[in-house]
């Protein structure tokens, strides 16, 4: 029984090592064989899932008390499926570029093994180990181009995330002292019978603060825009679509570990602040990938608002938005990667005429943009439907939520200037008109097409996906006049505001000032300590 989960972790790692040692181009094709084997293993896992569900599988003949255990439940099952799918997309995208580069494929496959391990592992220490290996490997992938910018952001990413993991270590020491075990289930059981004491609060604060660095919550989010902006396009898609969600997954698990509602409200407000600040930064960017990265931060804020309220309807809203966000953000990042390759620039103001030059790619990008804004019939609608329905009874949060949505739509209206032909006076680089439409034949953009289709599928097949995550998924009405009216009004308002402010010179200096905010590492560390202190004050 334990063979299948173990194979899922070690198969990618072993074949990664094989690819690295062989260093031949025929061996590199093993990537596809591994992916195929993993997909088949996943189908096998689905088949035996009724037996496997929420059962602790201990490696070797150890007891549950001291052994390393794996556990697969609904949540990890859904995440594993998403992870394998995302790796398919990234490998399909990266294959033409890196098919001769065995080092890149080595790191990519190794990362897949460790990420799948993180999703299945069921003890406190192994989770620490896996998160740290993921940090190291993704830092290497971020600096893969070895230019100055990516080196700086890679180091920044590595330092901030390992600083965050130190507090996880402290929290886990406290949990071990309180319960005498490392096993997640046993620790949950023993913690739930202990009276609520300052040490439990200390453990909770330390552990969730460390995860808040990993998942880019409010004060410590600025590593995300740098790392995701400077990495190669395929890695940006993977980081933004999936690896950040590894932090959110750990966050959900930590909430489950402490089993009673601890500081859900604190994280709800933190999510709101994250969403607002992400939107403000995204609006001010001129770099196409930085803009997408900051928009990821604002969407993470929305997800956190959902998943901080565990065991309520809004929790499922955040969770389903997490899965949908992976699809459309990967779509947008891969599309941006193709554009940057052709235009040789990352500035929004320099990229023009995408609609003429890349008609098919533009359609997929439009699908991604409509999805992230929560348009009806696109998959972002579902998560946002649940969030806005649940928030409707609280006017303040409801209006702030709509402010975030307005900002998101304005961001993507600014983004959409790349589709049109330039004015007469400005002369940005344009692809040769003879080449228009020839650069995006379906075979060039297979991953984008698949992701666009899955965005559309996820809208109508969400009840199927919802069943995969949790059985008691709240109802979502795809045809809801109020939501349609809300969305259209927001779009009209966003259009007016974008015309009035973003495309004119009125607030250029403000946007410039926001764009120029550069936070060095030690200020981020300082803000991390402030976050810990504010959580302490809140717990008091």
């Amino acid at each position, binding site marked *: 029984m334990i063979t299948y989960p173990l194979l899922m972790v070690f198969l990618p790692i072993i074949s990664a090592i094989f690819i690295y040692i062989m260093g031949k181009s025929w061996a590199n094709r093993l990537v596809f064989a591994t992916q195929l084997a993993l997909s088949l293993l996943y189908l096998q896992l689905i088949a035996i899932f009724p037996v496997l569900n929420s059962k602790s599988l201990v490696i070797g003949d150890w007891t549950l008390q001291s052994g390393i255990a794996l556990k697969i439940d609904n949540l990890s099952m859904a995440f594993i499926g998403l992870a394998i799918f995302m790796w398919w997309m990234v490998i399909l995208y990266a294959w033409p570029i890196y098919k001769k580069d065995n080092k890149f494929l080595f790191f990519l496959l190794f990362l897949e093994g460790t990420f799948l391990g993180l999703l299945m592992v069921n003890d406190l220490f192994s989770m620490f*180990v896996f998160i740290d290996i993921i940090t*190291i490997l993704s*830092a290497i992938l971020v600096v893969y181009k070895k230019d100055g910018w990516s*080196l700086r952001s890679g180091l920044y990413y590595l*330092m901030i995330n390992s*600083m965050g993991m*130190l507090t996880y270590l*402290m929290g886990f020491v406290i949990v071990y*002292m309180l319960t005498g075990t490392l096993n997640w289930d046993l620790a949950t059981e023993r913690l739930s019978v202990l009276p609520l004491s300052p040490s439990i609060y200390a453990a909770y604060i330390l552990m969730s603060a460390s995860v808040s660095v990993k998942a880019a919550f409010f004060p410590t989010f600025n590593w995300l825009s740098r790392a995701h902006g400077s990495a190669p396009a395929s890695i940006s898609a993977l980081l933004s679509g999936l690896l950040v969600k590894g932090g959110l997954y750990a966050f959900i698990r930590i909430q489950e570990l402490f089993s009673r509602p601890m500081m859900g409200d604190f994280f709800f407000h933190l999510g709101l602040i994250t969403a607002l600040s992400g939107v403000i930064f995204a609006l001010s960017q001129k770099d196409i990938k930085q803009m997408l990265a900051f928009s990821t931060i604002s969407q993470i804020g929305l997800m956190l608002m959902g998943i901080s309220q565990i065991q309520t309807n809004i929790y499922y809203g955040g969770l389903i938005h997490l899965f949908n966000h992976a699809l459309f953000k990967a779509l947008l990042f891969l599309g941006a990667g193709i554009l940057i390759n052709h235009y040789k620039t990352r500035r929004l103001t320099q990229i023009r005429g995408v609609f003429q030059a890349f008609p098919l790619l533009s359609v997929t990008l439009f699908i991604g943009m409509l999805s992230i804004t929560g348009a009806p019939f696109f998959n972002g609608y579902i998560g946002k439907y649940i969030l806005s329905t649940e928030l409707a009874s609280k006017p303040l949060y409801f209006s702030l939520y709509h402010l975030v949505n307005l900002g998101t739509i304005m961001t993507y209206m600014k983004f959409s200037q790349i589709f049109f032909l330039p004015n007469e006076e400005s002369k940005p680089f344009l692809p040769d008109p003879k080449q228009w439409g020839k650069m995006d034949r379906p075979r060039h953009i297979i991953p984008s097409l698949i992701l666009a289709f899955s965005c559309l599928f996820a809208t109508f097949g969400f009840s199927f996906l919802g069943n995969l995550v949790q059985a008691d998924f709240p109802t979502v009405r795809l045809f809801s006049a109020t939501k349609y009216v809300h969305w259209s009004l927001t779009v009209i308002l966003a259009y007016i505001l974008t015309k009035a402010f973003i495309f004119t010179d009125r607030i250029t200096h403000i946007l410039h000032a926001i764009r120029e905010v550069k936070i060095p590492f030690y200020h981020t*560390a300082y803000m991390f300590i402030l976050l810990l202190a504010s959580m302490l004050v809140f717990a008091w």
Partner: protein
Amino acid sequence: MPTTILNHLETFLILAIILSGFVGLATAKNIIRSIICLNITQTGIILLFLSLVYEPGMLPPVLPTPTQSMVDPTPEALVITTIVIGAAITSLALMMSIKIFHHYGTLDWKELADREG
């Protein structure tokens, strides 16, 4: 009674090490200093872990010792893994900072943040 005071003193000293590591992270302007502070914090946490599981009179968990008078062996296994991970992170961070120094000629966080592109 003296042993409990000693125990508390020990814990406070270790907490002071951890705290000084964090203060260093929040103030160090140089990349190498930040990496050193990261290591100091980690060492402090390891010390905390080992001192918390230790009880007076217990022997190290090496085999000829009877199991009743051994300290809990799990933390030692965990600590070794933590040290290995810390070494990996440190070496990677140092490697990157060498590259950054070759590229920009500085190891100052503020100066690096102000550079364009």
